[in-house]
């Protein structure tokens, strides 16, 4: 006989964990093994409920159970007329009746960005290549930025330290993915995190060189700040994509909100630092091995003139 609808067993979060077709014939629900639908709920009686068809409706009837049948109200009821979408409860288990013609939610489309990501980091050889590349970059940076005695093993060890941190980060995302969409994509998250951190590192190095060469011209600073923000945003967007439950528009919105939050927090810190008194010299520039001929230079006289311009700023602070 064709089903008229389905009786659905829901978990605590309202998700369907089991379905049983409702036909014209009576269905029994309970903890006993002789039922049509067996529930493992200790609050449910061995023979708790029957679903029967009457002339003009489908009825859920309490079989004189210990804990009873509950509809939308607070009191137990002897029976309920089932209409499509109605959620009711026996013991601690929620059940829902859905008629055969009930509407379902529109199909989620697999996002394009997700597919692109999958092609970039989707295959195992590529993932290996990216993670290895990042590892080599970290090790190189570790070695080149150290000036005490350091062995190659220490440099590689240092780089692995970075990788462990990335592993924890990727693990957290993978775990979240497991909870939200039942997909544990640790290696994808790790690859993505390694790729983004490597790009971050490269941006930081380029910024330092620009800072050294052009004495932090504000345009360079702004540009590099934007690149760093874009990387941060892409990182989040990518992780959300790999988790894979959000529609793209939502993904963009969430990423934008978080990025905006970070920008706001950073601006607040920067503003607070501006107002805070400190005895520290605020100069934090770096020196880089760049050929002297490549550097834009000023004369001592010119430097004196530029420094003289600070007086106005300082006097402004003296008399606010």
């Amino acid at each position: 006989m064709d089903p008229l609808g389905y009786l659905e067993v829901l978990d605590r979060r309202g998700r369907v964990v089991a379905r049983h077709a409702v036909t014209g014939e009576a269905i029994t629900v309970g903890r006993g093994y002789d039922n049509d639908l067996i529930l493992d709920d200790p609050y449910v009686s061995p023979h708790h409920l029957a679903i029967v068809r009457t002339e003009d409706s489908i009825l859920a009837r309490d079989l004189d159970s210990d804990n009873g049948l509950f509809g939308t109200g607070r009191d137990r009821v002897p029976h309920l007329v089932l209409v499509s979408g109605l959620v009711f409860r026996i013991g601690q288990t929620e059940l829902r009746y859905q008629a055969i013609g009930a509407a379902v939610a529109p199909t989620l489309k697999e996002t394009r960005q997700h597919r692109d990501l999958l092609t970039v980091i989707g295959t195992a050889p590529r993932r290996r290549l990216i993670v290895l590349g990042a590892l080599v970059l970290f090790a190189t940076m570790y070695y080149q930025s150290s000036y005490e005695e350091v062995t190659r093993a220490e440099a590689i060890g240092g780089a692995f330290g970075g990788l462990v941190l990335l592993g924890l980060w990727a693990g957290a995302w993978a775990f979240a993915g497991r909870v939200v969409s039942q997909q544990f994509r640790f290696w994808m998250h790790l690859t993505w995190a390694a790729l983004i951190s490597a790009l971050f590192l490269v941006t930081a190095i380029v910024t330092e060189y620009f800072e050294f060469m052009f004495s932090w011209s504000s345009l360079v600073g702004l540009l590099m700040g934007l690149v760093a923000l874009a990387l941060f945003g892409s990182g989040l967007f990518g992780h959300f994509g790999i988790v894979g439950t959000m529609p793209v528009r939502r993904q963009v919105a969430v990423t934008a909100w978080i990025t905006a939050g970070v920008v706001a927090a950073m601006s607040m810190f920067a503003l607070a630092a501006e107002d805070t008194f400190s005895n520290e010299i605020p100069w934090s520039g770096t020196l880089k091995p760049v050929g002297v001929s490549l550097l834009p230079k000023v004369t001592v006289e010119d430097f004196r003139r530029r420094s003289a311009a600070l007086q106005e700023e300082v006097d402004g602070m003296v008399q606010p």
Partner: protein
Amino acid sequence: MRLRVALVAWALTCVAGPALAQQEPSSTADVFDRYSGRVVKIEVREAGSAAKAVTGSGFLVSDRGHLITNYHVISKLIHDPERYVAVAITEAGQTVPVRVLALDVVHDLAVIQGEVLVGSHFTLTEIAVAQGRRLYSMGHPYELGLTIAEGTFNGMLEHTRYERIHFTGPINPGMSGGPTITAGGEVVGINVATAGNEVSFLVPVRRALRLMEEVQAPGYRTPDDLLPLVQHQIDQHQEAYLGPLLAGDYDTVTMGPYRVPSKLAPYFNCWGDTTTDDDAPYSLVDHQCGTDDYIFISSDMESGVVRLWHRLLEGDQLNRFRFYSLYSDDFQMADRWFAGNEDEVTRFTCEDRTVRTSHLTLKAVFCVRGYRKLQGLYDAVIKAAVLGGTDVGLETSLVLSGVSFENALDIMARYLEALEWIR
């Protein structure tokens, strides 16, 4: 031989002169007995709560209640006259309010007056004293009550900008502003500082004499606000002590392939050190010069400090990237922290450029902050790192405190030009 005889004779007249005028006491106890009534304890108190903020010493120098003390004892009164009051407490226990009449910030002296203070007082005169002569320092160390300490006169300090007597004897906190006298009661100097281990310093009495002459000159009026006077005195003094720095004709020292300025002025002291750690793939050589003396402005601020520091870095076992990591980290760390609080100074602001001097290409940084109460005075830090080497570098920093903006800029320009590459 003739010279020695002359010296002995001179020394004798110094000692014998006053002894003829009045019977010189024979023991420290006698000295204490005779002169303790002329020394007072000075307390600077918070006006509202009467809580003690600073204690020091002072001594009577006229029959109208004039007292000499150190500027640094009563400086809170100058910087925050609404918040603080000062009193003098006599040996007899009498507490008398005092007011400030005149200041010599550079030599750390002040004349104050407590109208009702009468009684015997010291008479200030210039006095020549021979090295080794026994002197007696009086004051209130650590609030332990009036104390007398014996010591010896050891001449004037050399290489200082401000005259200071080197006194070998214990001067402790709280004795500042008290007198150091001969057995005959002649004031030789005013207790001002100690380097510990009985190495102590006095302001020569003639500085106090000048200040008293100023106060007692007809028509002298104490300014209502003394802060501009402090500023004026520092400004005036600056011109004198910064002269050699502005002339730019510096003593130099060779560090690796560089020639760098060393003693910028006669009152500079220099010392050097090499860091050689066999395990480190680099070596550091330091050379530092500075002034030992400074002008006390307030408990958080001093002026007149000039300090320079060079560091030669050599890393022939490092590749150029690793060497520059060292160079960069070291350059960022150097001279980054200063004393000072928000009420007295602004924060620092900086300018940095790659600068081409006549001799070198440098990364130069000029940082400056302003004094809030003494307007027109600034602290400046000039830092530079020589560029172009792949395994050798030179960092330098010059710190100037309490100078005019113009002077800071002029000295910076001369200083940068004084760095040379010689091979």
